[in-house]
C-alpha cells in the first residue's frame, strides 16, 4: 500500500450535482437578500424585546452560527465574562455588545493573549494593525459556540492551547443596532505579530439587526 493506491475519481451520484447546485443557489440568494438594506417599512414593523443575535465566523473555517441574546444594561464588570473550564478551555459569556476592553483584560488575566474590539456594522479594523496575520486560524477547533448557553446569553469556548507561542487571538465584534434590536457578528483572527490599535475602515461584512444574520 502506497500513496499511489488511491481510487479512481468519481462523479457525484446521479442527480446530486444539480440538487446540490440548487441548494447552493438558494443559499446564495438568501445571502444576497440579507445583504440588501432593509426597507423603511420593514424596519418600522420591528418591535419587541431587545436582543443581540451573534453570528460567529472564524475567518477561514466558515463557522457560522446564530444565537439570541438579551441586552440588559450590564455594568462593565459583569457585561461579558471569561472563565477557565475544567478541560483548559476558556468560556466566554457575552451579555452585551459593549465594554470590549474589560473582556480583553479578563482574557489576558487568564493567560490568553487576546485583543477585543467592538465596531459598528459595515466597518472592520484595518488589517494593517498587524503584519503577522495567520491565514489558518484553526477554525472551530479553536473557537466554538457553547451548545448549552443559558437563555438570553451567548457563550463561546476558546481553546487557547491551540494557539502557538507568540500568537494572539484577535476578536472583532461588529455591531448593528436599529431600534430595539441589536445584532453582532464576531470574527476571530490570529496574529503572530504585535497587534496595534483598531482603526475602523469600511467593510463589506455587515450584520442585520432584524434577523441576527451576518452577511458579506
Amino acid at each position: 500500500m502506497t500513496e499511489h493506491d488511491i481510487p479512481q475519481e468519481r462523479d457525484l451520484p446521479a442527480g446530486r450535482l444539480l440538487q446540490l447546485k440548487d441548494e447552493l443557489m438558494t443559499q446564495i440568494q438568501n445571502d444576497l437578500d440579507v445583504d440588501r438594506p432593509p426597507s423603511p417599512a420593514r424596519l418600522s414593523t420591528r418591535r419587541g424585546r431587545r436582543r443581540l443575535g451573534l453570528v460567529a465566523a472564524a475567518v477561514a473555517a466558515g463557522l457560522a452560527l446564530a444565537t439570541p441574546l438579551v441586552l440588559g444594561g450590564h455594568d462593565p464588570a459583569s457585561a461579558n465574562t471569561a472563565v477557565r473550564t475544567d478541560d483548559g478551555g476558556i468560556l466566554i459569556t457575552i451579555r452585551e455588545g459593549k465594554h470590549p476592553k474589560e473582556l480583553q483584560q479578563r482574557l489576558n488575566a487568564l493567560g490568553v493573549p487576546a485583543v477585543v474590539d467592538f465596531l459598528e456594522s459595515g466597518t472592520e479594523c484595518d488589517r494593517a494593525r498587524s503584519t503577522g496575520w495567520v491565514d489558518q486560524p484553526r477554525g472551530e477547533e479553536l473557537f466554538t459556540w457553547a451548545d448549552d448557553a443559558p437563555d438570553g446569553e451567548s457563550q463561546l469556548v476558546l481553546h487557547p492551547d491551540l494557539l502557538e507561542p507568540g500568537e494572539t487571538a484577535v476578536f472583532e465584534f461588529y455591531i448593528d443596532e436599529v431600534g430595539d434590536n441589536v445584532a453582532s457578528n464576531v470574527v476571530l483572527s490570529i496574529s503572530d505579530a504585535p497587534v496595534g490599535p483598531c482603526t475602523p475602515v469600511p467593510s463589506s461584512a455587515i450584520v442585520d439587526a432584524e434577523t441576527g444574520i451576518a452577511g458579506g
Partner: protein
Amino acid sequence: MGTGRDERTQVGVDNRSDRALWDAAVAGDPEAFGVLFERHARSVYNHCFRRTASWADAEELMSTVFLEAWRRRHEVRPLASSARPWFLGVANNLLRNHRRSHRRRGAALARLAVGAECTPDVADDVAGRLADEVQMARVLALVSRLPRRDQEVLALCAWSELSYQEAAAVLDVPVGTVRSRLARARRRLAELSGNPSPVADTDGVRLTRASRKAEEEL
C-alpha cells in the same frame, strides 16, 4: 493508480473564463458562480474524498466549500486562469477542521439508494464506493503518519495535480517549500511502506544529506 481526473464538468454552454465568471460573481451575479460550481464540483468532491475516505463527507464538504467560497469572493481574485486552486484552498481550510462522522456517513450512504430502484448499476455503484472508502482509508492510515503540512502538499500536488506554483499559492508558502515538503513526504512514505529507496524530488534531482537537513529545518 492515478486519480483519473478529467475535465468533463468543465464542458458547459458558458464559455467565459473562470476569471471572468469570478469577476461577475463578485459583481453580484450568482449564476456566474453557479457555472464555477458546475465546472469544479467534481474536482473538489474527489479532493475532499481523498482527505476523508468518505464519499458522504466529501459531498457535504464540497457543498460547504462553494458556499464558503461565495461568501469570501470579495477577498480574492484568482490569479491563475482556473479558479480550481482557490476552491481547493478553501477545501483545505475546511478539511483541517473536519471530524469524520460515521453517523453522517451512514445517512448519506443510505441516501444513495433512496429514490432509486435497486438496479444492478446502483448496487454496483454503492459497492464500488464502499470499496473506494476502504481503499482510501488504508492509504490515509499510511499518510496520516506524516506531518499535516506534508499531507496537504501531497494531497494537492500528487493527488489533485496542482502545480507547485498553484499549491504554493493555496498554502501561502514559497514554491521551494512545496517542493521540499512533497519530496520529504514521498521519502517518508517510501520508508513507511518498506521501500526506503533513494528518493529524488519531482524534478529528478537526487536529494543529498545536506539538502534533506535543510528541508527538515523549513
